[in-house]
């Protein structure tokens, strides 16, 4: 049979068009929608194919960067790499469970927009990577923070929670650290979904610009305590929210994915 008469997979046709000609927001929304139905599809494969072909068709005798541009890029690069160095990888902690490192959490990968809310670039909060054996210390630190009378944010079950979720978030503006103490979040399969923390700051951000708090996993049923540390100052958080997202977090999240919401105790 002539291959040109076989029907083309719609998603692959869209991905091929994108690789060759780009995609406008509406086209990309269609692709995103279809990708959700085909989670095993490598959405980059055709872009990489086009890139490899471009390299094959291009001359290897590239023109050098202009000197002034090279100099500017070197300065920019060194500054960015310095920021990369200061980044810390994040990992959730379960009280009874020894923590294991998780890659790329809180990285630029999960710098997010949420339901059309544009995230302020470069503003991230990191769930801290605990040291081995520090689970107990997290519990103590959480209690100590509560005893100091820092602002606490009692939480309630979000609209998309699979069951009742309870807990509390404590946040210390002075140290820019906090803890999430949660109960009822179901165990997630990191290959299929991860939880994502969002922070709303009354002073710096509006509802349209929540701060991405990174993604985390819940590995067993029961209570979990997860430390949070702000890498960039956050003033007076007005709301914390947790959504369930695809692995690695999302660029845009629906409000209806909220599984937990915490507001300050009035």
């Amino acid at each position, binding site marked *: 049979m002539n291959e040109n008469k076989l029907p083309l997979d719609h998603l692959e046709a869209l991905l091929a068009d994108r690789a060759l000609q*780009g995609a406008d927001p509406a086209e990309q929304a269609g692709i995103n929608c279809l990708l959700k139905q085909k989670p095993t599809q490598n959405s980059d494969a055709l872009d990489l194919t086009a890139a490899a072909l471009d*390299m094959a068709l*291009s001359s*290897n005798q590239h023109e050098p960067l202009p000197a002034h541009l090279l100099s500017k890029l070197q300065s920019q690069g060194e500054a960015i790499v*310095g920021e*990369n160095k200061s980044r810390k990888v994040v990992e959730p902690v379960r009280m009874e469970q020894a923590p294991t490192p998780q890659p790329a959490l809180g*990285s630029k990968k999960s710098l997010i927009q949420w339901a059309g809310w544009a995230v302020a670039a470069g503003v991230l909060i990191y769930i801290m990577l605990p040291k081995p054996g520090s689970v107990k210390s997290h519990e103590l630190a959480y209690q100590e923070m509560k005893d100091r009378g820092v602002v606490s944010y009692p939480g309630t079950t979000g609209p998309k929670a699979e069951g009742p979720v309870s807990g509390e978030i404590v946040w210390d503006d002075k140290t820019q650290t906090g803890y999430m103490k949660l109960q009822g979040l179901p165990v997630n399969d990191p290959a299929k979904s991860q939880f994502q923390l969002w922070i709303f700051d009354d002073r710096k951000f509006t509802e349209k610009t929540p701060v991405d708090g990174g993604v985390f996993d819940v590995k067993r049923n029961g209570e979990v305590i997860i430390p949070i540390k702000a890498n960039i100052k956050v003033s007076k958080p007005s709301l914390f929210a947790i959504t369930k997202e695809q692995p690695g977090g999302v*660029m845009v999240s629906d409000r209806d994915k909220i599984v937990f919401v915490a507001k300050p105790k009035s």
Partner: protein
Amino acid sequence: MSINSLLARIAQGDQAAVQECLARYGGMVWSLAIRFLGNTAEAEDAVQDIFVELWKNADRYNSALSSESTYITMVTRRRLIDRRRKLGRRPELTTLPDAMAEPVSNSPVARVELVDEAAKAATALSELRPEQQQVLRLAVYHGLTHEEIARSTGLPLGTVKTHARRGLLRLREILGLRQPALSSPTPTLVGGLSP
């Protein structure tokens, strides 16, 4: 991500890797920008945006999926295509379609310097139907839209789309780039949902 890749080193905060990255890929990115945009000032702006994105998101590169140069070319192409779409224009074409149908680089010396995927792509391209080769060359290297290719070649628009899509899918199969899904969302194409 390969431990030895420059992007891996940049993700880990290795300052020396910045200079090496610019030495290795600066000319490639710059040449792509000039080819896509045809305007030095615009190209300079684009190249800065591209490298800043590459460095800030250096941890996104997955050596299991592609070579580093192919990945950097992919990110570069995405940004340049986006920019060109926003500008709503493209460089003036100064050559005829027949002239554009041939790859710029055919010399054996150039071929051996290609990374594995690019070398495979060059070989794979020659296995495609002539009309698919022509359409892909015009689309990938010269950056023509489907409509422009249809006008240039006289082929019906639907036929151009079919050749482009099937040709690219066939190349993907030959290159073995059909890997499991990446864990990260596609960065270029953020479409906000209504609150």
